[in-house]
């Protein structure tokens, strides 16, 4: 069920009434279960197609329960290994391609995010961070909560259960909550129907031009079309993902859930590593807690005098973490390597620059506007080129052009797009400052009810107008595919 479909609107209204008028833990749990089940089942064409993911969920629940009773490291290891292998098999990762495929078509909707939640549960239950027993209905309601099923944000069970259990009493929403939620939802739809649709249209045009280029076309021409395509795709992804998150978080408020923010102005990031603390935040936090931290801890244990090798351990840790994040996004190894290398080079640069310039000079440099805009431009440019491997097959380039050409053009495009992005950032900052002032005035609580309503209605009109002039169908949620 798409978030932009009529069915979804109807589904939200019915589930909102059911959600907000059913009280008492058992009743609420069952109603929430039915709502989640209805949303979940809308993605399956046949009953058989749902069997693999249902078996995955039942196995995962069994392993979570097992972690309550058996606190042995090897049981933890086997449990984590089992859920990851089933996940990889069902998602058809290349490293398990030797195994026979299931003889029927099945759907794996939201499975990546279910896996993240399951690993979090198994580890936290094993370590004693989650002490209360988890019933099957509560487990399903957590793992398959319809608002965050397909792409997060990844809510911690401890935070979710507090809000979920609070539904025993009546849900009280203030006027500000409701207005804020609607405003957020409408902003989300403006991003999806307007901006994301605009950028996917531009991208399709540039991408078409790019692929029509023949072998032997001048490097500059290829670079220009590739540059246009990669940047427009990046902004399509940005508006698509942030737009859907706005809708999810806004609806969350109406359903009585304060979901964590997944973005914090990623375009302000002045380094690769900072970008990932601002983009898809809950995914980064998950990887930091359950992959990066245990890996660095382990490396500290095996490396002699580890305190003298903090940076080296960090470089290895960041490289491995971003390699996995990249591989999770797409089986294309290019994205994984580019993300891994980006993180490692960022850390190496931090270490070197501190040694060469000294801490104080680096601090002054980081505070310099010009330096900052260049860094921001290069960060966005690097990421735009990296994620090009989400829409481009690396073999195409490899056969079309020589390795040296690819390497040279990579740095050329990076530098040019980086410089243009840096200039664009200056305009972006000015616009953002203006928009923020405008937003503050509009959202000001002292404004009359009429002004607030006018603001909401104007947002609605922007959505309607954008829907009317959009040639392409409304862009689907990109992260749904992961």
């Amino acid at each position, binding site marked *: 069920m798409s978030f932009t479909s009529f069915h979804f609107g109807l589904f939200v209204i019915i589930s909102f009434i059911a959600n907000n008028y059913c009280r008492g833990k058992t009743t609420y749990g069952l109603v929430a279960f039915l709502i989640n089940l209805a949303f979940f089942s809308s993605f399956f064409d046949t009953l058989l197609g749902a069997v693999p993911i249902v078996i995955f969920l039942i196995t995962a629940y069994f392993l979570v329960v097992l972690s309550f009773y058996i606190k042995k490291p090897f049981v933890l290891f086997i449990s984590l290994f089992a859920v990851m292998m089933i996940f990889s098999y069902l998602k058809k990762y290349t490293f398990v391609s030797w195994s026979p495929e299931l003889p029927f078509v099945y759907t794996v909707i939201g499975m990546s995010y279910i896996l993240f939640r399951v690993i979090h549960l198994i*580890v936290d239950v094993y370590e004693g961070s989650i002490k209360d027993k988890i019933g099957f209905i509560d487990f399903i309601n957590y793992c398959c909560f319809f608002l965050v099923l397909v792409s997060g944000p990844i809510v911690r069970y401890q935070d979710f259960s507090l809000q979920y259990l609070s539904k025993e009493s009546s849900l009280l929403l203030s006027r500000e909550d409701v207005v804020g939620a609607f405003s957020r939802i409408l902003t989300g739809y403006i991003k999806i129907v307007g901006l994301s649709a605009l950028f996917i249209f531009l991208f399709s045009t540039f991408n078409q031009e790019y692929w029509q280029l023949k072998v032997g076309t001048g490097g500059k021409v290829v670079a220009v079309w590739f540059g246009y395509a990669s940047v427009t795709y990046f902004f399509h992804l940005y508006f698509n993902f942030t737009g859907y998150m706005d809708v999810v978080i806004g609806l969350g408020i109406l359903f009585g859930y304060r979901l964590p923010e997944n973005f914090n102005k990623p375009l302000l990031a002045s380094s690769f590593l900072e970008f990932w603390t601002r983009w898809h935040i809950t995914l980064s*936090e998950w990887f*930091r*807690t359950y992959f990066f931290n245990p890996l*660095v801890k382990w490396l500290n244990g095996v490396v002699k005098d580890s305190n003298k090798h903090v940076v080296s351990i960090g470089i290895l840790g960041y490289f491995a973490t971003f390699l996995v994040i990249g591989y999770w996004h797409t089986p294309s190894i290019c994205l994984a390597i580019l993300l891994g290398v980006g993180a490692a080079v960022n850390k190496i640069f931090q270490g070197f620059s501190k040694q060469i310039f000294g801490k104080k000079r680096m601090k002054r440099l980081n505070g310099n506007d010009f330096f900052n805009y260049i860094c921001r431009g290069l960060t966005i440019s690097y990421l735009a080129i990296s994620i090009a491997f989400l829409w481009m097959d690396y073999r195409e380039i490899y056969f079309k052009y020589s390795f040296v050409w690819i390497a040279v053009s990579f740095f050329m495009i990076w530098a040019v797009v980086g410089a243009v992005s840096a200039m664009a950032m200056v305009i972006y900052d000015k616009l953002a400052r203006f928009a923020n002032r405008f937003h503050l005035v509009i959202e000001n609580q002292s404004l009359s009810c009429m002004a607030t309503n006018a603001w909401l209605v104007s947002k609605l009109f922007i959505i309607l107008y954008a829907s009317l002039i959009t040639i392409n169908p409304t862009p689907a949620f990109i992260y749904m595919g992961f």
Partner: protein
Amino acid sequence: MSVIRKEIQVKLQEIFVDLFDDDGIVISNDTTAKDIDEWDSLMHITLMVTVEREFGIKFRAEEIGQLKCVGELIDLIVERKG
């Protein structure tokens, strides 16, 4: 502040100065990652590993991720030391 908390803070102060290689760092209960420039994900986990070693304790994955300030770290050390 109890004597135990004071002792822990003194020891943490030494760890911070040593790890961040900065004599100017003065920690308090309210000190957060925002107050120390180099306190990123890597330094956070390295700090936790060093604290675990120095105090002979173990932290859970979730605790490491959820720590907000030095005061919470001291609370956790006090709790773990029993």
